[in-house]
Each structure stands twice: as structure tokens, then as C-alpha cells.
């Protein structure tokens, strides 16, 4: 089980370790920034290459991990499929519905497996909420509210700031909640969305969307890259006999480090320690699927539908009108 990682920034480094924990051997690292590729390669005794296609096509590579900026995803998925490799791609796996369809067609044709990292399905708190709903704790659900975000991400060469490329908070962050929404409550029929996407005087994005699901459920989804610091997730599910709330600010531990003179004081919220990280669970699920034991929790079509929802939200934000899905 040999792995190539394309994109050796923060996400690439994290996924390389998680894959290694699942028994993968990292053999090739590609990044247009040579030092990133070399650093990761050194840590895993792998080869660093400049050209991603060279890493993808290596005969000894079984799986390609794609952790580059969004606009490059589709071309690498297609190349990996054509080379007969299974693919683990960070979300979203394309910037448009059309790109995602092309990627799926290539994967089907090559009979390889494509897993897209919609990791929220593996978060313990979200899985617990899904279970509570399934157990009927709130009765028939009528309303869902999901909130996610914090600071504007930096990214390589500030690629997030180019909203055409990144799709902003809607495409990069809210898409997690859109996938989970559809996973638990089924398909959406229409969306109305407002998205700030400001570039002056500085980059901030704030997206507010209402989805009407085919079941009739109303879902309000908010994504923020407008906060000066921090990161927060909130969820609320209302039914005809109760409601569930989740707030990531309520953590089992908080740390406050005493600062030395001249240091800027800060508060670090490390989140909730869990036995197995949701990102690790993704790799385990992918591997179980590769071994033919069970279908992974996220299918390529699921990932396509999440992109369709995000694209519809942005179309609504652009036109000022509701958009049918």
C-alpha cells in the first residue's frame, strides 16, 4: 500500500501521518514549493518530486492523496484515475459541478475508488446528533441550523482570497455542513444565499444561506471567515417534540498560557480530545472500502451533490434570487 501525496502543506502533512497510521507507506511527495515536498519526504523516507504527474504515474504508487488548492483537484483526480490509482481527495473535489462530473466519469471508467474528505460525517459530535435524531429524541425534524467558521485562512499564495478560485467560505467550509445536511436530511430543493466575499479593505467572507429540503425541512447554514480570531461550530436541530444544540465553545478543556513580557497574550482552545480523530476515521473507512469490505460513508456522488449545493448557493448570492437544485 504505497501512497503519493500531492500538496505537502498543512493538510498534506496531516494526511500523510494519518495514512501512515493506517499502514500506508508514503513513497512520493509532490509540491510546487520544493522545500515543502522535501520536508515531508524526509519525515517519511520518501522521494520528493516537483511534478505531481510524475508522482501520480509512479508504478509503485497504489493511492494518490490530493491536498492541493481546490482549482487543481479535478485534473489530479482524473490523472490518478487514468493511471489506475485509487484517490483520496480533500473537499471539494472540483470547483464546478461539471468538473466533478468529469472526475467521476474518469474514476468510473478506470474502475478505481475516489474518496472525498467530507470529514464532518466522521466527527463524533455530528455522529451523535445524527444518532439522536434517528432515535427520535426531537420527534419529526422541521428546522436545522448549522454554523461554522472563524478566521480567514491564509493558504498558499493567498489562494483563498481569490473567490473565483476558492469559492470563499461557502465552497471551502460551509460545504462540510451542506454534505452533512444532505447525509442526514436528504436532498435540497432550493436555496437562497447572501455571501459577503469582500476584498477591501481586507478579505472577509460571511455566507448566510437557507435551504428548503425536499422533505420540507428548512435549513439555515452560516459560514464565516469574518472573525478576527478563533473557530466555532454550532448546530441546532428542532423537531416537534424537542431540540438539540451543540456549541464547540463548550470544550472539556481550555488552556491559557502565561505570557512572557512582550508576548501577545492568547487563549488556545484545543477542542475535544477523542480516542480516534475524525480524520483518522476517514482513512480507516477509505481503506475498508478499498479492501472491498464495505462502501465508504462518503461516495463520489455524495461529494458531487455537496458541490452542487455550494454552487447553487453562490449562484443565488450572485443573482440575488433563489436557485432550484
Amino acid at each position, binding site marked *: 500500500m504505497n501512497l503519493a501525496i500531492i500538496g505537502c502543506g498543512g493538510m498534506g502533512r496531516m494526511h500523510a501521518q494519518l495514512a501512515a497510521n493506517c499502514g500506508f507507506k508514503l513513497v512520493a511527495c509532490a509540491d510546487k514549493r520544493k522545500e515543502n515536498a522535501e520536508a515531508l519526504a524526509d519525515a517519511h523516507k520518501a522521494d520528493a518530486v516537483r511534478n505531481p504527474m510524475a508522482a501520480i504515474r509512479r508504478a509503485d504508487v497504489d493511492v494518490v492523496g490530493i491536498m492541493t488548492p481546490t482549482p487543481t483537484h479535478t485534473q489530479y483526480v482524473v490523472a490518478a484515475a487514468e493511471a489506475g490509482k485509487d484517490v483520496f481527495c480533500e473537499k471539494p473535489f472540483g470547483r464546478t459541478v461539471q468538473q466533478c462530473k468529469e472526475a467521476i466519469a474518469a474514476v468510473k471508467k478506470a474502475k478505481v475508488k475516489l474518496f472525498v474528505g467530507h470529514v464532518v460525517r466522521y466527527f463524533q459530535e455530528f455522529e451523535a446528533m445524527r444518532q439522536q435524531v434517528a432515535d427520535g429524541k426531537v420527534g419529526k425534524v422541521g428546522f436545522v441550523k448549522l454554523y461554522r467558521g472563524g478566521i480567514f485562512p491564509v493558504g498558499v499564495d493567498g489562494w483563498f482570497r481569490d473567490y473565483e478560485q476558492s469559492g470563499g467560505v461557502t465552497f471551502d467550509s460551509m460545504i462540510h455542513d451542506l454534505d452533512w445536511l444532505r447525509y442526514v436530511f436528504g436532498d435540497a430543493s432550493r436555496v437562497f444565499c447572501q455571501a*459577503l466575499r469582500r476584498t477591501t479593505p481586507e478579505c472577509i467572507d460571511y455566507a448566510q444561506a437557507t435551504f428548503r429540503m425536499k422533505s420540507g425541512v428548512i435549513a439555515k447554514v452560516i459560514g464565516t471567515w469574518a472573525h478576527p480570531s478563533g473557530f466555532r461550530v454550532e448546530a441546532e436541530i*428542532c423537531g416537534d417534540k424537542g431540540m438539540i444544540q451543540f456549541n464547540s465553545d463548550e470544550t472539556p478543556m481550555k488552556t491559557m498560557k502565561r505570557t512572557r513580557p512582550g508576548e501577545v497574550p492568547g487563549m488556545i482552545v484545543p477542542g475535544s480530545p477523542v480516542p480516534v480523530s475524525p480524520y483518522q476515521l476517514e482513512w480507516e473507512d477509505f481503506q475498508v472500502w478499498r479492501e472491498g469490505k464495505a462502501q465508504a460513508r462518503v461516495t463520489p456522488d455524495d461529494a458531487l451533490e455537496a458541490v452542487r449545493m455550494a454552487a447553487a448557493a453562490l449562484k443565488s448570492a450572485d443573482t440575488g434570487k433563489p436557485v432550484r437544485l
Partner: protein
Amino acid sequence: MAKIGMMSFAHMHAYSYAACLNELPEAEFVAVWDDSANRGRAAAKQFGTSFVGGLEKFLALDTDGVIVTSENVKHPALVEAAAKAGKWILCEKPLAPTVKEAKAMVAACKKAGVGLGTAFPCRYSPPLIAVKDLIASGEYGTLYAANCTNNGQFPGGWFANDELAGGGATMDHTVHVADVLRWMTGKEFVSVYCENGALLHPRIKTDDLGSLHLEMEDGLQVSHIASWSRSESFPTWGDVTLEIVAEKGVIAVDAFNQKLNVYNDDAVRAEWAYWGGNPDLGLVKDFVAAVEGRREPAVTGVDGLRAVEVTVAAYKSARSGRKVRV
């Protein structure tokens, strides 16, 4: 001393306003009128005042002002009758179910030369006042977006019947936040998109939740949830929250989040014991001062009308599936 009467105890806020009248030394709570004699008598007894059954007889009493807290659809007739009788009026929100009626009420009061106020107590909430002051200071720069909620528990009774309420949660719980935003920003609403329905209480004859997307002047992007979504087991009545995204930062306010968590084995649910200021007292105090000074209340009938325009447009949007101009 301002002599005040109350018209109907159909709305639960009447009980809070009545308590405020009794708390204010500058007000005299003269009488209660109610089209439900039993309810009116009980309220009069509770607050140590007298009950007067006939509307004409009540309006002929020596009072300076009245507080109208009837079912929403009865506001127009009661306000216009009180205006004709020369009374200063504080009307419960929403001012009226339709824009036409709200305009007629404003005109009738102007013609009669009496002050008309709309009961938007949020303007007297200390946390919301602090946010307004912060925005006014300019410290946070230009406002870009706001994400708001006014959630509540299901009020039941006539609230759940369009024939008496004129609208559901979308109406009941949009007007407060619409007014707060106008008051805080000094901007008017331009358009609204709304999805709503009876989502949590499917048998009611109105909506219990609305999800609104509004645009204010200068492109300010606002979204709002107006709901009766808090379950019976929820520890408090509901909330008013705003997250405001601005040029120089974010301001988040949860106006009634000044509470203790109380766990009492005799109760079926945990409860929040609120210890913050009472916005209703500020509202009633201003009305009493307006009556005494023969001036307009601080929150006017026109403010009530503007909020009605927003909710009426929201219903039009929900029915048509389109964004509607306010």
C-alpha cells in the same frame, strides 16, 4: 400623574406592562377593559384596579393614555377608537397585520393629535443599547452583515390562528429584530426573501418558523430566524440574538443571556433565572413620560408601521417564492 388604562389582556405581555404601571410612581393604573369580561375582571383584580366592561364607558373615563394588548387583528379598531377619544396610545406589536391598517392607525392618531407608540421593548434592553452605542462610536467601522434570531416557545391560543393573529411566528418574531436593526443602523429595509411554514406544529393554522434574508440600505446583508421553535422542555422562553459583521470586527449579542442555570427537582425542566434589566419597564416608563409631556413615544407608530412593512413583504415572498421589495 399620568392616568393609564389597559385595553385587553389577550396578549401575555399585558401582564408585564400592568406590573410596570404599578411599579411606576408617576403612573396611575385607572382601569381595565377587555372583550373577555372574565379575563378582564381577573386581571383588574390581580393588579388592584377596576374593570369596565363597555368600550365607550371605558374610553369616557378620565384617562390620559391607554395600552392596547389585544389580539393583533383587533389593534386597528381599538387604536382608532382610543385616538378618537383623545387618548395617548401604546400599542402591542405588531402594530397591525396589514400595511393598510397600520398606515390608517398612524393617520388616525395624527389627525386626533395623540401620540402613538409601538411596544418594542428591545430598545430598552441594556445589552442591545450597549451594541447600539458601540456601533454609533464608529469603533467597528462600516457594518456589512448581520445574522439574527428571535426564537420563542409556542404561544398557542389565538397566536396560532391567522384569523386572530394575522400571521404566525414570521410576523410575531420578525418585527422586534427589524426594529432593532433600523434603530441600531439608521438604515431602512430594501428587500426580503422568506421561507416559512408550520414545521414544528403541523396542525396549526399559521406558520411557526420563518427564515428570512433581508437587504438594508447600502447593501447590508441580514438573515433572520423568526420562530416558535423552543420546545416546552427548553429552559427559557426564547432569545433575541444578533451577530454583526463589521469592517473592524464582529459584535455578537444574546440580549437575554444574563441568567442563572437553576436545577430544581420539583420542576420538569432546568430553568434559566433571568437577572438582567427589565426592558418592559423602560418601554412603559417612556410611554408614561410621553403622556405627561404630551409628546410622541420614543418608539413611534411609524416605527411599528416600518416593521409591519417588512413582515408583510416576507409573507408575500414566502407565498411567491421570490425576493420582494419592502
